[in-house]
């Protein structure tokens, strides 16, 4: 019999292997093809650029403010998406009325929407947060609407029978019941938020992570640019790990109940 500790460390080891196997493979591929052209430097070069670029005051001056705006925009989008999605999902009439308008805005590319947002919100932080919101809100909104539409009928009837209505119904039934889909939307929005953080800093900026990446691109500092992209990816990875924790907690009933297979 092996000791419990040995088994536990083996399990942990397996997890690490699973976590890094594919990324390691991809780095090897990158190694092989990288460096062949000007626009695709090898991993070593990018690694060096990464260390030089981001382990400096840039981290505080550029990355942190960007992160702050990202989180602000994400939070606003979450509140807005769920807040709008619930009534739209619940009311067929509201859905019919608002859907074309929302689809209209959804189809407008953020880069061309920016001038309009600048007209209304200026060129400073509120504008950039709004740009992030304008992209993040859609997956949350759509998923919330669909999640609310698909609520279980028997549960809905149960609420009606036992007089569960208003805020209580919203909190205990609608939001909880739709939470699997809402979480899907929130997860989608997380990476879209990062993308829009970059896009928002392409306008009326003089600092920020996205701005820096774009500047590197324009100044043909390609290794630095890739190091920025690498940072974006790592950022996404970190945020999604946090998100998964949240999700495990919020949706524990969902994965436990056999309504879904985690």
């Amino acid at each position, binding site marked *: 019999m092996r000791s419990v500790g040995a088994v536990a460390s083996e399990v942990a080891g397996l997890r690490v292997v699973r976590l890094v196997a594919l990324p390691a493979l991809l780095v090897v591929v990158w190694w092989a093809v990288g460096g062949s052209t000007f626009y695709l430097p090898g991993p070593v070069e990018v690694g060096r650029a990464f260390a030089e670029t981001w382990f400096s005051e840039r981290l505080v001056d550029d990355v942190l403010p960007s992160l702050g705006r990202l989180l602000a925009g994400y939070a606003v989008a979450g509140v807005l998406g769920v807040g709008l999605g619930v009534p739209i999902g619940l009311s067929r009439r509201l859905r019919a009325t608002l859907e074309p308008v929302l689809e209209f805005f959804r189809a407008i590319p953020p880069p061309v929407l920016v001038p309009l947002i600048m*007209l209304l919100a200026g060129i400073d932080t509120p504008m950039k947060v709004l740009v992030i919101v304008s992209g993040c809100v859609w997956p949350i909104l759509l998923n919330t609407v669909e999640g609310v539409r698909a609520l279980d009928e028997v549960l809905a009837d149960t609420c009606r029978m036992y007089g569960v209505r208003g805020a209580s119904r919203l909190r205990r039934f609608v939001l909880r019941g739709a939470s699997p889909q809402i979480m899907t939307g929130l997860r989608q929005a997380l990476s879209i938020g990062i993308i829009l953080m970059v896009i928002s800093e392409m*306008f*009326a900026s003089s600092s920020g992570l996205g701005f820096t990446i774009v*500047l590197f*691109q324009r100044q*043909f500092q390609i290794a630095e640019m890739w190091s920025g992209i690498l940072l974006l990816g790592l950022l996404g990875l970190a945020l999604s790990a946090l998100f998964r924790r949240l999700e495990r907690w919020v949706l524990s009933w969902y994965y436990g109940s056999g309504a879904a297979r985690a």
Partner: protein
Amino acid sequence: APEQAQGKTKVNAGVIAILDTAPIHLGKAKGFFDEQNIDLTITPVQGGAASVSGAVSGQFQFAFANTTSLLTAKQQGLDVKVVANGVSSTGEQGKDFSAVLVKPDSPIRTAADLAGKKISVNQLKNIGDTTVRASVRKAGGDPGGIEFIELAFPDAPAALQSGRVDAIWVVEPFVSQALGQGARAVAWNFADAAPDLTVAMYFTTGRTDADLTRRFTAAMRKSLEYADTHPDEVREILTTYTKITPEVIAKMYLPKWPVEVNRASVQTVADLALADGVLSEKVDVSALVP
């Protein structure tokens, strides 16, 4: 007709669809490129960086980019080489295609007052901030404290009007437009930076063969000369590839299109950029502009 196109070399040129590039459009329309056995396709690009990467990757045999972009590319070791002049400042105060504008009631009266203010440029660390600093310096101000902010030309007038920035740097057609709406020019930065400043140039990369380059250069020179001497036709051609309204086209200040690159001005820009930290090392202008 296809048989006509047969002996011709297909050329794809990456060019921004703005006033500055009127000569190549005009030259194409006039057949100057056909004369050189070039079957020219003009692909609109968004900016200097896009044209440089397009040229480096081989999609464009020739492309158009501003002086600073080219200097930056050269500094990063990219194989770019100027083949013809692009566009130049008129060098005349009050009659150029680029200006720094303020609101009519702004306390900023001269370029020196711009010191310490918030000024929009279309791209940071590019020709805009370099030349605006030059204007301020020339007027006796200290350019060190200026806060530059990136704002695309089309968005700048609105930002100026709503007071989100103190001053904007724009080029035509936005100069005329904003002036028409009451804005006031406080500096003509291209004219200030260097006499007859070469603002942008046509370039190629090492992979284009010498003969084709020669022919393209010849056609380009003819186009530049023609454009410079036929302003009415320039205004005419603008209606075909831009969406500038006819009223504005009629009023716009046109730039100069001299045939020769003003090397001294390119060197000046390089030196200024180096001094401002836009470039990190001294660039050998003669390697860029042979």
